């Protein structure tokens, strides 16, 4: 499936409604990036509703990379004895589809 990306701030109630999530997939990514199906009128209407800003895949990837890099830096700054245990792993890079 082909995807499109946008940025939008999740304001909470009403941001994603049942009628929308049951109609097309909406996936949240770091940096308030949202992935929606391409060529989908309802998905485009949702982006309009949430005042989203469409991003190219490379633009969205850069936003996600920056957020993941922050999380990785926070992890790297931890004392060694707190790293790499069962609940605390270095955040993975995310590659957009």
């Amino acid at each position, binding site marked *: 499936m082909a995807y499109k990306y946008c940025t939008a701030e*999740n*304001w*909470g*109630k*009403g*941001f*994603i*409604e*049942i*009628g*929308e*999530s*049951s*109609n097309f*997939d*909406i*996936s*949240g990514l*770091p940096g308030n990036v*949202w992935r929606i199906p391409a060529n989908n*009128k309802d998905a485009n209407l949702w982006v309009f509703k949430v005042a989203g800003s469409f991003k190219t895949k490379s633009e969205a990837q850069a936003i996600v990379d920056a957020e993941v890099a922050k*999380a990785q830096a*926070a*992890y790297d700054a931890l004392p060694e004895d*707190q790293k790499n*245990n*069962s*609940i*605390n*792993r*270095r*955040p*993975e890079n*995310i590659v957009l589809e």
Partner: protein
Amino acid sequence: MATYYGTYGQKVQYLASDPASPQAGQVWFNSTSNLLKVAVDIQGAWASGGNLPTSLFNNFVAGTQTAGLSAGGALGGSPTTNVTNEYDGTSWTAGGNLGTSRSGGGSAGTQTAGLAIGGNPTEPALGVVNVEEYNGTSWTAGGNLPTATVNLAGCGTQTIALAIGGTVPTAGGTATNASREYDGTSWTAGGNMTNSRNNNAGAGTQTTALTFGDAAAVPVAILVEEYDGTSWTAGGNLPIGKRQLGAAGAQTAALAFAGQPIPEAPVVADAFIYDGTSWTATGSMANARRQLQGCGTQTSALTAGGNPSSSSYGSTDSTEEFTGGPTVVTRTVTGT
């Protein structure tokens, strides 16, 4: 040319506004928006709820989708909080603070009769025996757990609760197979599970409980166990072995969602419903996360907070509401 009337024996309704309670299959023309609409059945989907005031993970969550409770939790990293918030189906407002700041405990009960079981005041896990009871305004001490336990599951009510599994820091951080029953005053030993497990989820009641998930090993993480008030027996396996996942519902009508597939996979947003025998995929959440809890029923569930990262420094303020079963939503019919 075929007509709608000729095919279905009914005319398309001509309405100034959408019907308040449309039936699945109902078709109408909205004369205000000039749109042809149809109501369709969905089998389960998530919607965003009001955001938590603060990003959290491993917070206690109890109650229902329209009367929820969030208490304590980790703020990302070591600090834990004692803050409580109450949900009305739209937004969160402050409630009374927990006596002991902590995260990663078990939850039971409702917004006005909640129960916070054990948990962890700091990272790395030390664990507490404290149990607290909420009355809708303030928390008071309940009967202590026999042993400090973290990353356990809870279910039931404030006065008839069950604590399931978890990590016992004083036993070298190992998982336990113990379950413990609460009568509103004190804890007594319940039946031991077949498998020791921690970072598991629980649903149901003290005498009809369900648990699944585990941090340690795939063979256990996919295994489901059901409790009858005396002993645990095997249920239908989860499709994916996970830890730190959310749960809601009952033993024969449960919902499992999100979490971290093991070993060490990225966190996920998928969800499955259980009928007492087997699991079926349903709509995925918008935001993948782990270290979260759920409340409510299989068809009307709530989750708030969680950790979207594989590190301990992720947290979210996102609330999501699940609506399952036959639910009618409106679609606008458009031409090509």
